[in-house]
């Protein structure tokens, strides 16, 4: 099982590199234009962290520490906290929807955010639900990401824009979209 998890994170890291410019562009529109660079910087260390041996819990923990100590900004502690929660949950159960639920809860807790705030949480929460229902697909992930467009930001830098944040995809939602595409692609959505 641990191989699938490593594969998942590898695919995520590769995607972060590939989409670096796009993610920063999304962030330029409603934030400070660094989300792609932040995540790409983290991706390098995420990959390195995968070299360390250990079980699924350990893989998530190492990945969490890598992001926590290299990404910075808002996304560093948020992804870091989410992966720490996954690490903990993976020691308790194999139920993927419980993993993702724990991750989403960690993000909400760390970011003091909730559904509809136009953040990465607006991908994590519906993904979790679809996963629980057994209906998660690539199309759905894209739809969740796209739906952040119509929201008005209430957390993160985009919230300073008020109504002007409407009409743009949230960059953190987009990077989380890549996370879950990689999740499906790696077959990490089932044990």
């Amino acid at each position: 099982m641990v191989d699938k998890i490593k594969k998942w994170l590898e695919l995520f890291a590769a995607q972060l590199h590939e989409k670096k410019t796009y993610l920063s562009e999304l962030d330029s529109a409603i934030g400070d234009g660094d989300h792609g660079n932040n995540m790409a910087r983290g991706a390098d260390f995420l990959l390195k962290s995968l070299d360390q041996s250990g079980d699924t819990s350990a893989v998530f923990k190492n990945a969490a520490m890598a992001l926590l100590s290299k990404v910075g900004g808002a996304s560093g502690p948020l992804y870091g906290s989410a992966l720490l929660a996954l690490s903990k949950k993976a020691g308790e159960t194999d139920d993927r929807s419980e993993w993702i639920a724990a991750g989403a809860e960690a993000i909400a807790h760390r970011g003091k955010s909730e559904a509809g705030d136009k953040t990465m949480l607006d991908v994590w929460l519906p993904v979790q639900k679809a996963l629980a229902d057994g209906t998660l697909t690539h199309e759905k992930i894209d739809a969740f990401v796209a739906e952040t467009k119509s929201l008005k930001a209430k957390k993160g830098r985009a919230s300073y824009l008020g109504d002007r944040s409407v009409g743009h995809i949230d960059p953190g939602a987009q990077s989380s979209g890549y996370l879950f595409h990689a999740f499906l692609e790696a077959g990490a959505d089932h044990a």
Partner: protein
Amino acid sequence: MKKIMNKPEQAVDEMVQGIVSAGCGQLKNIPETGVIYRSELPKDKVALVSGGGSGHEPTHAGFVGDGILAAAVCGSVFTSPTPDQIYEAIKQVDQGKGVFLVIKNYSGDVMNFEMAKDLAEADGIRVESVVVDDDIAVEDSTYTEGKRGVAGTVFVHKILGAEAARGTTIDEMKAVADRIVPNIKTLGVALKAATVPEVGKPGFELGDTEIEFGVGIHGEPGYRRESLKTSRELAEEIVSKLKNAFQWSEGEHYAVLVNGLGATPLMEQYIFWQDAEKLLKKDGLLIDFIKVGSLTTSLDMEGLSLTLCKLEDARWLENLKWETHTLAW
């Protein structure tokens, strides 16, 4: 993008080396952490630490020195430093009397500094903090992130830094901090957006005659775009917004910071101050302390911000005038 740089990814590290060198022995850095600290720290005093994304120079490292900061933590450009960077700074400067953190109100900064605080407290280090949210461009409301921390943070550094130098305890410092922050308000205007080195183009585009009110210091767009105004008109807009926020009365005492955003020459800052001062004087305010200069910048952004600090306590003015030796105060 036209910048004096080598590789954009190396910019912050190279800058840190340049700053430490310019300290001529007064400054040191912890390798690979972006932490710049005073080589000689006074014993038995609270250590004041600040930090945030880079690109705001001389904020924060330019204020490391006697009477202001014990350390500054330099994150990537416009990106909060990570918990372990901040944690290293805390461990380095603690002299047994605790470490006080000045945090600007951004989710990223707040989250990373809080995590660092947790790590340090687990080591038994006493840590207190204050979150600065002086930017009145963003309406405070329970539905948003709240106001941003911008140039007014410089006054928080200076006032708390002098308290630390006086030997004030960490609990008393927290009380002072909580009283100062609501008395500091800032509003800015941009003529040109900043270009982040790793991005290579401006965060937003302003036409040849456009300006934007209420911009942040990270290239975040502001609240309104208008056509270019005279210095007098800019002063009127900004002072009237500050007046509304403070609800000031004749005879009140204030400190002022006219802050260039990076690429705006001092000449324009002084002209603006001359216009703003007239308006403040007309309302009968007493301006006891004035600073004009590019102190909290946004890389090569053109524009400026005006910060007012209501001097509720005469000791704050003493603190602002407290003798210091740093690269930038």
